[in-house]
């Protein structure tokens, strides 16, 4: 059955914004995207990617303790471990059947008092789960009544899991509530710049217990470095740091963005509440978008000369390898996958598409969930305005089943040697003998936890150089047309005894 017969068609990414149903509409969503919706839940994402980045707070989680452990099972530990965060203390009200039926407000009150007594934090963020979201406990009422009895500042951010399973929606729901923790500036420093849209890392060099330099550069590091090299002051990485650090963020003159999806909700909320402007560029994978990001900030702060010098210095280090990459892949197809089963990574996929275009390739985005995409409208529009509105395989992706890349290649009429594969997450597509780094260039930059010293990720001109190097390396590695990877052998031919004459492999 062809992709068209399965209900798929190639459209510009921005078309999704026109055809996707409203997220809360129920049946239309089920028809648009049959099967389970999204992945993760509001609690996981907020706790794992937002709240745990604050250094001197604890969480009171109003729900069953199992939600605490479930979040720790992957998100909390994986993100926190890889990005150098301190251990998050989550105090659970351990909601049981009694509180579900009769209400858990009294228990919540007791636990807040005990948590303040035992942990002595400066900030307690109260999160809720499905059970406390449904039994209608008046959490804000409890907080209001108990605030006078505790030393910590109490702040409620609702996170019942069923409220949202799409990261784009989750960001809009929760990120502005962290802005609520910020205070009006006593004075605005005209040289100070915040980096907002910081995704997984904390972007804070000085931790609560000392200075810290990451073993592996993080995505935020180049942006922070650029701010400083322009002679400006890096003020705050949002979200991150201590409560005091976060609440003084509005003292900056401007916000610049690391990741658009994470940045815009914070930027909009800070603009509305404190009048802090933000600059639109983000997810700067490649030289050209990074140059735009630097110039935009430089113009805003009137440091154009410094910007010119900075760009020249940085570009000199990577221009040769970027030229080599262009030579290796010009005219090819960039197959960019949104993720084998999560269908997330919309912003990164678009960032990679923009980079592919910079190298002279034609990007095609596949396996990216249409609802996920539709729920990041400002991101899609930003890239489209920048001239990056690539072809996207729109379809039902029923039951979160990814489409095999070989079927997509057949549909596009291209062969292994015509494409470069950019996986978007874990579970890369591979089949030894058919589609493997041994015969198809694979550039691993999508999986955000796969951090290694010289690996390309994103952000900045040096990273563009690293990514270009990866493109060159992958192109050369694929020329062997044999000796498949272990990963590919798990799914395709397990052994071929040196025989590299499999029909599809000859396509190289």
């Amino acid at each position, binding site marked *: 059955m062809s992709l068209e017969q399965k209900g798929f068609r190639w459209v510009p990414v921005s078309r999704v914004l026109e055809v996707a149903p409203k997220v809360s509409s129920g049946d239309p969503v089920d028809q648009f995207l049959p099967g389970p919706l999204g992945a993760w839940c509001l609690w*996981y994402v907020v706790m794992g990617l937002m709240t745990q980045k604050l250094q001197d707070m604890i969480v009171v989680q109003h729900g069953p303790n*199992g939600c*605490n452990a479930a979040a720790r*099972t992957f998100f909390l530990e994986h993100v926190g471990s890889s990005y150098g965060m301190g251990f998050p203390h989550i105090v659970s009200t351990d*909601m049981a059947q009694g509180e579900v039926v009769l209400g858990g407000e009294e228990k919540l009150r007791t636990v807040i008092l005990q948590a303040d007594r035992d942990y002595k934090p400066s900030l307690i963020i109260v999160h809720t789960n*499905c059970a406390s979201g449904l039994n209608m406990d008046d959490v804000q009422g409890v907080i209001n009544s108990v605030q006078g009895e505790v030393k910590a500042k109490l702040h409620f951010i609702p996170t019942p899991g*069923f409220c949202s399973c799409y990261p784009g929606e989750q960001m809009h729901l929760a990120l502005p509530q962290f802005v609520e923790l910020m205070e009006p500036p006593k004075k605005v420093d005209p040289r100070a710049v915040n980096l907002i849209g910081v995704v997984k890392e904390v972007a804070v060099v000085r931790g609560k217990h000392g200075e810290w330099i*990451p073993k592996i550069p993080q995505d935020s590091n180049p942006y922070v470095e650029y701010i400083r090299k322009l002679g400006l002051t890096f003020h705050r990485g949002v979200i991150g740091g201590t409560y005091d650090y976060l609440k003084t963020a509005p003292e900056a003159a401007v916000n610049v963005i690391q990741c658009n999806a994470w940045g815009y909700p914070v930027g909009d909320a800070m603009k509305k509440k404190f009048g802090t402007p933000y600059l639109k560029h983000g997810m700067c994978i490649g030289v050209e978008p990074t140059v735009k990001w630097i110039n935009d900030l430089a113009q805003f702060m009137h440091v154009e000369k410094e910007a010119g010098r900075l760009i020249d210095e940085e570009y000199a280090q990577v221009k040769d390898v970027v030229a080599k990459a262009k030579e290796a892949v010009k005219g090819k197809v960039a197959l960019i996958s949104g993720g084998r089963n999560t269908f997330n990574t919309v912003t990164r996929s678009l960032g990679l598409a923009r980079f592919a275009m910079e190298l002279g390739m034609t990007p095609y985005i596949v396996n990216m969930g249409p609802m996920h995409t539709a729920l990041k409208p400002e991101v899609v529009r930003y890239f489209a305005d920048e001239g990056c509105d690539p072809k996207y395989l729109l379809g039902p992706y029923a039951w979160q089943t990814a489409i095999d890349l070989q079927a997509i290649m057949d549909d596009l009429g291209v062969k292994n040697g015509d494409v470069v594969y950019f996986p978007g997450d874990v579970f890369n597509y591979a089949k030894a003998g058919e589609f493997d780094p041994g015969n198809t260039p694979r550039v691993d930059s999508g999986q955000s936890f796969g951090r290694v010293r010289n690996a390309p990720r994103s952000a900045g001109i040096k990273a563009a150089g690293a990514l270009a190097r990866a493109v060159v390396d992958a192109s050369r590695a694929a020329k062997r047309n044999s000796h498949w990877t272990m990963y590919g052998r798990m799914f395709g031919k397990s052994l071929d005894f040196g025989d590299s004459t499999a029909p599809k492999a000859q396509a190289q």
Partner: protein
Amino acid sequence: MSLAVHEKARDYADKYNVCVLMGAAKAATGVPDTMVINHGVGGCRMAMEHLRSDNVPDGLFTPIISTAPDQASVIHGGGKKLAVTLEHAVEEAKKRKNPLKVMWILTSCATSMIGDDIVSAGKNIQDKYGIKVIPLDTPGFLGGEQKGHEKVYCALVDAFADKNVPKKPNAINLVGPHLIGSKFWPWDHQEMVRLLAAAGVDVNMTFAYKSPVEAYAKFGAAAANYNLSGEEFTEFAAVSAEHGVEMWGDDLVYPIGIANTEEWYLKIAGRFGDVEKAKATMKADMSRVQRRIRGDYNASWFLSDISGRHIGILGEAKYAASLARCMFYDFNCYPVVVGLGGETRAAIDAGRKILEPLREFCDIEIYEDPTFFEYGNALKKADVDFAIGSRYDLRLVRGLGIPHVSFGKNYFFNNYNFIPWPSFGITGMLTIMTELGKFYEEEIKHEFAGYRANSFIEPVGGPAAPSEGQAGKRCRKC
């Protein structure tokens, strides 16, 4: 010498303990040729899929298909989503190599609270397709994972156990391998089965790990259920009693290390098998281990190096207590802080009982079901050389500047124990020594920061100040 016990004095929880749904998912996906329908939100589904991954190595893959209700479903009811998902699951089942024998339906907090009728939904499918459907209400607010396992065990007995099977006095059922608390548990379970068989003990089946659905028919043939976890299974005990199967071995030490294995093996062989056969097996195993390490310079080096260290241990009560004894008896370490985790009083008491013989020989601060906060402070106060725990307390402990090695909890999540070798039994000592040896050498002794600070070649990016990758105390001006 003493055992000081710190009991719980708070109303909150701050520990790693997954919920009823996760327990049910682990157990249900341990039954071959079944399928789990998770009538719950996306987050629960991801946790289930991760946590059940322990069952997958060596080929037991049980699909989990989710309904993933959203706000609209919570308001309007998720029955329609469930019905559609069940039909889809039947289609998926047709693609499988083996016929589907059971379809489980599990609820999460949200779908349980809105009262979706999983029983009727299941019955419709059962009537229409002749597939056995077992619906279980498993919201997280019912408690910890032990209850989820128990619900699955009881359901399996209710659905399949035959009351008229002949008794075998040397047969036992193993109960709760997922709850052992060792990250090597699949191989530990395998090793226990091997040792039991070698001592003439017949392992009738394991609840619920790899035993086929048909095996549950002969549940009643066993003389006892050997409760691996130490948790109290009240309902399952009652159901078992109806089949003349008693619960046994709740506070039996795990066979971690040599001394513990001797105690475990002789007790269990004495009750259900042949003690002489057990002794012969242990002699053969010891001989194998001796051949491997006698004269091995690295073994002597490591065993001398680690001796006399003060350590902290956090884990499931029976596991932490047994490991503490192993570290004391086999490695001459002093387990000065032991955190005993558990969902029921029985598990904590089992752990305390296992530690009791150490009372005369060392000072141990025992923390009953501690919070991470309590455990961290206890380690700091006790000034331990290193701590053994799981991935879930790694950041806590290393954040205090204390070396940490993970032995506990489930396989999932970066444990990378690809070699299918146990940590239990006498031969399991080779696993423990391998894990501890590498850890001790690299994480305790080696001075990583010094390598860079004292490098002859200029490090990439210039000299690091403060030490790369570590929390320093210097300010930027320094």
